[in-house]
């Protein structure tokens, strides 16, 4: 029985044997999954927040090694802790948010680097964590990306109405009974999960780029929020494929190549704006 099943899947198996095919599937899958999330990061002006969460992933790696936890669990736990700390510090109103983010972002990154340096008994591939190693993606990683990705997308669709209304105006959302605080918290958990999953693929320094650049590119062509979310997924998928083929062709590092491909798409999308009247640019100055 087992042999029959195996024979049926032989061709698919052989395809997945190729590391480049696995990388391609992982990159495209991840980009499609993070497209809608990236839109919310852009709309809610959370790009620096996303950066802070992903920088904290290195601290998560260090903690996971120290406590002998699975990496994904360590990264997720630290990312959640950092975002909850930020909410707490914000409520204290002692420092402006950008200063708080700067403190959290760089101190968690530095702490992570220090802890990883202490762990002399394990060979840690620091570059792999910082810039990703999508070519080393295993079948298990693929299963996590597609399974987890679909689950996260389902959760995002579930909170979509509440989160979008809260993005337009949290007071309207609350007055009309849409529980904006709850969806904001759930969105943070989604972000932490994405970072934990994407770390291996593009590295913690480039995750935010994968979230923001396709969404920013999609803005130019989108007429509605859902439209922009779908476009961001498609553009991200194209960038992932183009970046990986580019890295194969020019022998460049794969994670940065994907981001460069996304950047090229973004720049191409801005070309028509150069010929339009400045006042008609829908996204001028708002992508910082």
């Amino acid at each position, binding site marked *: 029985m087992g042999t029959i099943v195996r024979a049926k899947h032989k061709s698919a198996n052989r395809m997945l044997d190729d590391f480049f095919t696995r990388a391609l599937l992982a990159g495209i899958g991840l980009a499609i999954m993070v497209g809608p999330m990236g839109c919310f990061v*852009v*709309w*809610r*002006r959370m790009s620096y927040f996303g950066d802070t969460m992903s920088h904290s992933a290195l601290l998560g790696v260090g903690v996971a090694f120290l406590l002998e936890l699975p990496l994904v669990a360590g990264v997720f736990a630290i990312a959640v802790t950092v975002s909850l700390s930020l909410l707490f510090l914000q409520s204290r109103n002692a420092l402006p948010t950008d200063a708080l983010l700067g403190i959290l972002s760089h101190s968690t990154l530095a702490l992570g680097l220090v802890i990883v340096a202490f762990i002399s008994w394990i060979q840690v591939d620091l570059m792999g964590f910082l810039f990703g190693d999508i070519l080393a993606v295993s079948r298990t990683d693929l299963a996590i990306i597609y399974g987890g990705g679909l689950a996260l997308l389902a959760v995002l669709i579930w909170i979509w*109405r509440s989160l*979008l*209304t809260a*993005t*337009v*105006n949290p*007071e*309207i*959302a*609350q*007055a*009309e*009974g*849409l529980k904006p605080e709850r969806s904001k918290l759930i969105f943070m958990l989604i972000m932490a999960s994405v970072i934990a999953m994407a770390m291996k693929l593009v590295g913690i320094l480039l995750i935010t780029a994968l979230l923001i650049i396709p969404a*920013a590119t999609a*803005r130019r062509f*989108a*007429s*509605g*929020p859902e*439209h*922009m979310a779908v476009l961001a997924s498609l553009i991200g998928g194209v960038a992932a494929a183009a970046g990986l083929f580019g890295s194969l062709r020019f022998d460049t590092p794969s994670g940065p190549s994907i981001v460069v491909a996304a950047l090229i798409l973004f720049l191409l999308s801005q070309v028509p704006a150069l010929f339009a009247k400045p006042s008609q640019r*829908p*996204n*001028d*100055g*708002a*992508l910082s």
Partner: protein
Amino acid sequence: MDATVHTSLRPLLTLTGAGIQRQDRWLVRNVGLSVAPGEIVTLIGPNGSGKSTTAKMAVGLLEPDEGTCERMPGLSVGYVPQKLNIDRTLPLTVKRLLTLSARYSDAQIGEALFAVGIPDLVDAQVQHLSGGEFQRALLARAMIAKPDILVLDEPVQGVDFAGEVALYDLIQEIRDKTGCGVLLISHDLHMVMAATDTVICLNGHVCCTGTPEVVSADPEYVRLFGQRASEALAVYRHKHDHVHLPDGRVQHADGTITDHCHPDDGHHREGEAQEREPHA
């Protein structure tokens, strides 16, 4: 202060002795008001008098630090906040703005936009609307769900005079048609809608409550709100039993001057035009 006009209908929401404190300072204190179905209640008062804070307490965005806020169980609210900036990175048509918190048919959307006078803007991007068009779109968004109460925080800001009159007419029309209660905040002391059933003057607390009458300026009212108010119509006739002096102190009807005024400090009297319940 329990200075509310009591109607025969059960109120949609009632604030009793409600106050909000932030860092040892009372933003607003001792607010009593209620809104009944079909009633239009207007809050007026100078800057910083706690109008928006009171509205936020009423819709449940802020929990009162003292006093109570009772809302009818299952009360549905249509809210237009004072400030609403939609990020330019968010593509949003007027149609999608109206369907943010629930789904509606094209017919319902068309009807709501027709009612507020912008039927042609259904597919326009909200960032391209003028101030007046945007306020109308927000009003359409708040009313499309046919809520029990509309809470409108300065709904006519950025609207020219003619548009202001039209919007006030529209709010009245919505009230007449749907029978919803309306809690309206107006920063413009000159212009309170004629259909208002109850006007509440706030100045950190409820100064006075009454029915509007478009008559010449009440001298006490003018003294409270400054010279500018005297050049326009006073919104209603009422008698203040105390005056807020320019230095922030309060002169009472019996001539005494105190640093603050409280309804139960013994300086307040029953005014003829006020429907205040007697205090001990």
